[in-house]
């Protein structure tokens, strides 16, 4: 993404003014809507704000309260559980789909279309479809029972212990195609000579994938992993549509917790503290990746 440095353009005062004017919306957005709002959230998280923001500073009391709230711990736990299943399942399924599609199969175009179409659908629609399919009385469970397996059980969506698996299933269905598309592009970028060389040396295909191709598409995999992880932190729509956070509060997630405390439970201070925690989680995920990416780009540039 690094662009070669360009010589400074010849400048007139009028042009300067035009450029500054053109970039004004970006400057305002960055200052007010990105930096300003983050700062606001941090400040409010240090106050005792309830329905309306106030300036009664209470230090880290909101954070203490947050981390003694069971519901918050539950939402963090759910996010972690969902995240591990979702990211691993998406990567595994997406990787195998990409590798198998890359084997000169017939109907490649149709298969790609089928694997990626859920990604065009909203998480709301995804959640609602799976809510319907997983409905124990009328959905998959009942259909299989009628096939002659009367003891078949598939009631994840109404089970407090398994509801997060149900949500992960729907989310994997929606997003695995994205991983396939990203990795397929990576696989198509692998040099044909490598395949020829491996064939001459008689190395089995799976070994080539494991030892040569996988490290070569590592950047694509890293990008997919970061994208999926950010999706995990943002997860909201699919939970609202699928379970509304239920049964009980069994599928509570942090993003929904924050929305609840902001708009329904009128506890802005606590919600802001929670959103700052979420922000720190994102930065903890993102900064190492950006650092690694930056370093790799610098190294690449040196090589040329």
């Amino acid at each position, binding site marked *: 993404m690094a662009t070669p440095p360009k010589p400074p353009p010849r400048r007139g005062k009028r042009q300067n003014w035009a450029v500054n004017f053109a970039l004004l919306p970006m400057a305002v957005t960055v200052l007010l809507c990105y930096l300003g709002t983050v700062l606001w959230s941090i400040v409010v998280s240090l106050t005792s704000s309830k329905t309306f923001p106030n300036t009664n500073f209470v230090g880290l009391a909101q954070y203490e309260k947050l981390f003694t709230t069971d519901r918050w711990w539950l939402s963090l736990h759910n996010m972690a559980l969902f995240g591990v299943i979702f990211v691993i399942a998406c990567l595994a399924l997406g990787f195998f789909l990409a590798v198998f599609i890359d084997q000169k199969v017939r109907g490649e175009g149709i*298969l790609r279309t089928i694997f990626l179409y*859920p990604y065009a659908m909203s998480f709301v629609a995804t959640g609602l479809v799976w809510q319907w399919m997983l409905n124990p009385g009328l*959905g998959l469970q009942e259909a299989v029972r009628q096939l002659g397996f009367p003891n078949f059980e598939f009631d994840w969506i109404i089970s407090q212990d398994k509801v997060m698996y149900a949500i992960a299933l729907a989310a994997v269905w929606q997003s695995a195609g994205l991983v396939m598309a990203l990795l397929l592009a990576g696989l*198509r970028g692998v040099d044909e000579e490598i*395949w020829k060389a491996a064939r001459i040396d008689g190395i089995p295909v799976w070994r080539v994938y494991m030892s040569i191709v996988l490290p070569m598409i590592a950047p694509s995999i890293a990008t997919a992993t970061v994208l999926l992880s950010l999706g995990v932190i943002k997860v909201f729509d699919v939970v609202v549509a699928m379970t509304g956070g239920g049964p009980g509060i069994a599928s509570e997630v942090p993003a929904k917790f924050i929305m609840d405390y902001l*708009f329904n439970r009128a506890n802005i201070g606590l919600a802001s503290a929670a959103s700052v925690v979420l922000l720190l989680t994102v930065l903890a995920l993102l900064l190492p990746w950006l650092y690694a990416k930056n370093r790799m780009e610098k190294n690449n540039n040196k090589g040329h």
Partner: protein
Amino acid sequence: MNATTPVKVRNQRPAKSWFTPARIGIYAFLLMSALFFLLPLYVMVVTSLKPMEEIRLGQIFALPSRPTIEAWAIAWSSACTGLECTGIQVGFWNSLKIVVPSAMLSIFIGALNGYALAYWRRPWAGVFFAILLLGAFIPYQVHLYPLVRGLSMLGLFSTLPAIVLVHTIFGMPVMTLLFRNYYASLPEELVKAARIDGGGFWRIFFQLMIPMSTPIIIVAVIMQVTGIWNDFLLGLVFAGRENLPMTVQLNNIINTTTGERLYNVNMAATILTSSVPLFIYLISGRWFVRGIAAGAVKG
């Protein structure tokens, strides 16, 4: 990675004979996966065509014995979204009213930012751009409440301009990056020559850059239209009761109904809501993939 690099369909993997165990395994896996991905679509369509008596039998995979489009008519024009029973069509028109100006505005600003960043270096602009990109990763929840307050102070909260503005703000990082990368990939001599010929900032933008941007504008339109159409959270918070987008209306139809759930109507409404992005996906093909690849490399 360049946003405009097409996904190459080069396929020179060793050709093999059919019916080896490996080939059969590959096809078996791909077919099973295709079934898994198609199953919900099939269930949606079949359910939407069944009357409720058939649905109560619990045969979710059975074809409708007496197909009817009644549920579709109800979903479109008389299903209840909370207190009102005017169907999902209200949401459809709302989404359209939101998507068109939001996409146009965010693409225009993205193109302008990208052009200014690529050719008219300003020392402060790079820093702002970096913050903007980092901001793209932050969960919306962090920004929500301050934006609600800000828009209330401006008297805009719960209006169409509010939701358009919010989509423009949150679309800005990816749009700017998309156009900046595209413009950076064009030969710089073009702009240099235009400048020597006396072209100013705006003239070069409107008469040279915009006409040359068709391919990237198509990608941007696909990304923004599908993204904004599928949005739920921002519409829920900022659009106001009068302008709720289709996704929010859909969730209201399904999750706030009392009494028996009309699954056929629900599924018809879900298909209707998904039809716009699915249509775009099907007609745009590779462009859609290019769009997600471009969105994926942000940062």
